[in-house]
């Protein structure tokens, strides 16, 4: 048999076509993808297919009849990746080193249920990249900042984007690398190390410095800087946009929203304000922690919310309706209500995805339903429930990425005749 994956090297948000030819006609086969992660875990996905009369299986055209995905799913071999049986629990697949590609081996086996008993008939390695060709990665360490700056090739100038992640902390560069591959100078900013939120000083100044790194960069168009954020990062973003005199972005994207802030012009209070409602944490039958009611309780305290009525730039909110980690949809409702009442409703773009969880990542990232989390206030390691059903969640990742890219392109690449 002949297996081809086209293209065999691509960016992670690009689709590929997996085609097998020269098979016996109308026979059962399994296509399986295998990835060995940076953390040393093995992830796999597989689909059960039947070859057609000409001995062909096309993942883009044919139906999978079981496995980790079913139906017509051209990218099922990537988005339905999950830890192989027997792996550690609470895993989440995230690339730390974005300068190297994710290597995924796609193999073909005889049969369906017992496919693992056979050795693969044919296999191919495919590379999935976060950094496109010509992208430069520059480590940012001056002024006490900790981040990674990604610059596209070409003369520029480019719009800039500040990229803020959530409560897990650390430096996560993959989304920034991908945005750079799509034409933006992107700064991934670490604002606290995992487990060290309590001890980190999160004054506005730190973020303002980072914002200026972008704005003042010789290749960045200074009045075309945006912010993209997820989870805890959304509070940081909204607080800065509302209260910082220095940070006036052209547009903002907030994924999986939170608006409970800490008092004052600092974000250092998180480790106090959020845990104040930890009595609302529930657990499911697997002892996974559900935090969404913490958010609901906090929503009821107006003094603890970012005053979104003061926002003056286009804002895009992306949320999952099955978010078990936070009440993201209710938060977005609250934001909408406040902004509408203030006459700012026209700035808002909202997308809520059904059966989608908390971790809305770039397309084809494996869905993380529950994952390990280090609670900053108690230094405890727990497993948090993020929610979402794999197929709808993956569709949401795919769709939201495209919507986010077009939102960014509209506000950062096209000029406005009239400023809003």
């Amino acid at each position, binding site marked *: 048999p*002949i297996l081809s994956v*086209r*293209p065999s090297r691509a960016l992670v948000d690009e689709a590929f076509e997996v085609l097998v030819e020269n098979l016996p006609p109308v*026979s059962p086969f399994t296509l399986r993808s295998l990835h060995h992660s940076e953390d040393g875990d093995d992830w796999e996905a597989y689909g059960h297919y039947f070859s057609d009369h000409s001995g062909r299986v096309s993942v883009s055209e044919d139906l999978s009849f079981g496995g980790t995905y079913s139906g017509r799913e051209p990218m099922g071999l990537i988005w339905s990746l999950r830890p192989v049986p027997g792996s550690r629990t609470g895993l989440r697949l995230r690339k730390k080193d974005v300068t190297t590609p994710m290597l995924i081996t796609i193999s073909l086996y005889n049969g369906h249920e017992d496919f693992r008993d056979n050795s693969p008939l*044919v296999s*191919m390695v495919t590379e999935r990249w976060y950094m496109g060709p010509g992208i430069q990665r520059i480590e940012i360490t001056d002024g006490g900042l900790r981040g990674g700056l990604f610059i596209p090739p070409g003369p520029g100038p480019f719009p800039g984007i500040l990229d803020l992640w959530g409560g897990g902390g650390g430096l996560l560069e993959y989304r920034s690398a991908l945005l750079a591959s799509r034409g933006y100078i992107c700064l991934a900013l670490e604002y606290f190390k995992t487990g060290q939120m309590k001890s980190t000083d999160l004054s506005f100044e730190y973020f303002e410095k980072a914002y200026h790194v972008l704005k003042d960069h010789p290749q960045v168009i200074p009045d*075309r800087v945006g912010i993209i954020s997820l989870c805890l990062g959304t509070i940081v973003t909204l607080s800065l946009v509302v209260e910082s005199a220095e940070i006036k972005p052209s547009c903002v994207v907030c994924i999986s929203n939170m608006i409970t802030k800490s008092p004052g012009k600092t974000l250092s209070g998180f480790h106090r304000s959020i845990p104040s409602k930890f009595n609302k944490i529930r657990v499911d039958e697997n002892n996974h922690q559900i935090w969404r009611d913490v958010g609901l309780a906090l929503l009821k305290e107006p003094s603890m919310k970012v005053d979104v009525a003061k926002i003056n730039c286009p804002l895009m909110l992306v949320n999952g309706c099955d978010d078990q980690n936070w009440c993201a949809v209710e938060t977005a409702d609250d934001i909408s209500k406040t902004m509408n009442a203030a006459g700012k409703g026209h700035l808002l773009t909202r997308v809520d995805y059904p059966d989608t969880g908390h971790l809305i990542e770039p397309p084809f990232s494996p869905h993380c339903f529950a994952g390990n989390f280090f609670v900053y206030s108690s230094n405890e390691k727990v497993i948090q429930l993020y929610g979402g059903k794999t197929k709808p969640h993956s569709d949401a990742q795919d769709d939201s990425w495209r919507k986010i890219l077009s939102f960014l392109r509209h506000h950062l*690449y096209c000029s406005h005749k009239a400023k809003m």
Partner: protein
Amino acid sequence: MPQMASYVILCSPVVLCLWEETKTSVSDSLKNNVSWHGLGVSTLSWVLVWSRRRWRPTDASNLQRDTNKAEDQSATACSRRVSEDCSIGGTYSGVEAMGLLWSLQPVPGSKPGLRMRKKNVQAPMVVTISVYSSHLTEGFGDQVPLAGVEVERWYMAPGVQRIPVTEDGLTATLFLPSGPGPFPGLLDLWGGGGQLVEYRAALLASHGIASMALDYLTCKYTMETGKIVEQDYFEMAYKFLQKHPKVLGSRIAMLGLSLGTSVILKIAVHSQIMKLRCAVCVSGSHVQPMDGFLKEILDYFSKNSGNTHFTKDNEVVWRDLLLPIPTDLSLKVDMKGMMERAGNSHLLTLLSYPNAGHLIEPPYMPHARVSLFREIQSRQKLMVLWGGQTLEHSRAQEDAWRKLLVFLRKNLYSGVKSGSSSLSNL
């Protein structure tokens, strides 16, 4: 403050796999989708390609007779696709999805007689595609492009292994496809320029054929002894492939260009040891002495060197070296005749491309009509006219490659049953 127009070029796939691959489109085989988005582009734009070395801006003046679209400028981004729109001039014209690659030429002022060939196949060829804001034919270096993007073109797919081969006196490189195997094998022979040329074998391995590029003119043996190799050198290469654990010994093919064709035809007819499953001969001739082997073939060419012409630019034309085709049977491997008599002319597939030149390479490689060539025997450097008109030659390369892959696949892969991973060297 004047509004800065910004442009973004999208090239999909951005990180490309194989030299001859491009983005899928519905009907065609994969094509490179180069499009650029910008706002308010009322002037004519250009797309340019720079290869990392000194190769040229291929210019394509692209579409954009947009003056009647002035009213659309404000709201929507205006975008163009190379695969859909028309180039109205430059190094190519018309709707040419891959024109930015196959019409690459050396920048003005370069050395004459250049030919683009990738030496190190383990690294990609990096091509920069840029947009300029007016129709340019020169002076690209002075202008600042509006936007630029880099694209990588690879000869080796991920997982393909490159293995230098020096045992059994061979000078060769083996490329193994990724996967458990076993795979059909192929011996890849280039022409009279000698050297170890790897890119075609690397590309074939990326298509599932264990391919070995073989140097037979400037190999270690010849460089040390001064003697031309004999038939046993090729038989050694064949046996090497045959006994390799990842190669299906009963499915070995040969591919040759130019002089390589002469060798293949001789072997296909005369060798008792080499049982080829199929053979592909590009730009070659079946006219050669029946006795002897490679040395005799080369001597025959030398003998006929009186038939060499020179163009007015002093370029060497070797076309008539072997003309007129002798009817003397001792002077040629009479393939067609013999095949017809033996009743196996159905084995012959003949492809002739009008206006294509001698160097029919993998697709999208820039066409070299003339290039500097070092003659093996005399060690002389000559400017040789290979021929071909760029557009037809490039189409021929694209078509020939596709047909070549189908031919190889049909002959090397058909009839292999699914559970045959245990098939060893039959």
